[in-house]
C-alpha cells in the first residue's frame, strides 16, 4: 500500500459512517467471502499481474 492509498483509506473511515449502504450488498459480500473461493481467486489474478511481462 503506497502513501496515497494510506491517506485515502484514512479518509474512507471518516466518510463511511454517513453512508447508508444497502445491507443486502454487505451481506452478499460477506457471504461471498465465506462461501466462495473469492479471496484465493483474486490473489491468483494479482500474482499473474505481477509476473506477467
Amino acid at each position, binding site marked *: 500500500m503506497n502513501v496515497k*492509498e494510506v491517506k485515502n483509506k484514512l479518509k*474512507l473511515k471518516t*466518510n463511511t459512517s454517513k*453512508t447508508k*449502504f*444497502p445491507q443486502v*450488498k454487505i451481506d452478499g*459480500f460477506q457471504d461471498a467471502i465465506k462461501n466462495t473461493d473469492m479471496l484465493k481467486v*483474486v490473489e491468483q489474478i*494479482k500474482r499473474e499481474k505481477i509476473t506477467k511481462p
Partner: protein
Amino acid sequence: MDQPKYEFKRTNELHFDFISVGKKGEIHKRVTFIEFHYGFFNMGLGDLNLETAEVDYYSVTDNGDRNTVLATVSEIIESFFELYPSHTIYFKGTSNSRTRLYQMAINHFYDELSERFHILGELDDKMTRFKRNTNYKSFLILKK
C-alpha cells in the same frame, strides 16, 4: 467505449456524482465505494437527494438512459482504479432483478470492458471468469 457517457465529478475518493438526463428530467446519481475488507470495495449506484445528501440505492429511475448511465459507471470504475489500482471492486444489485440488469450491462459492454478489466462472477461456491449467458449472484472487477 463508443456509448455516450455523462460527465462525472469525484466529490471525494469514494463518491462519484453525475446527472442522468432523460424522459423524467434530471436525476442526480452517485456511485459509492465502501471498503469492507482490506483490498475489496463494495460498489453501489443510487439516486442522490441534494437536499438531504442521502442516496437511495433502491430507486427505479427508468429515465430511459440506461446504457448511458452504465457506460458512465464504467468510466467511474476506471477513474476509481487510478486511485486504487491494486484493489478489487465487488458489486451486486439490491434485488435479483437489478443484479440481472448489471449482468445484462456487462454482457452488452463485455468486449470493451474485458480489454481493461478482469471480470468475475459468483456462481455457486466459485468466483469464475465472466461468461455470457450465465446467471451470477455478484461480480468482481479488477484492473488489468
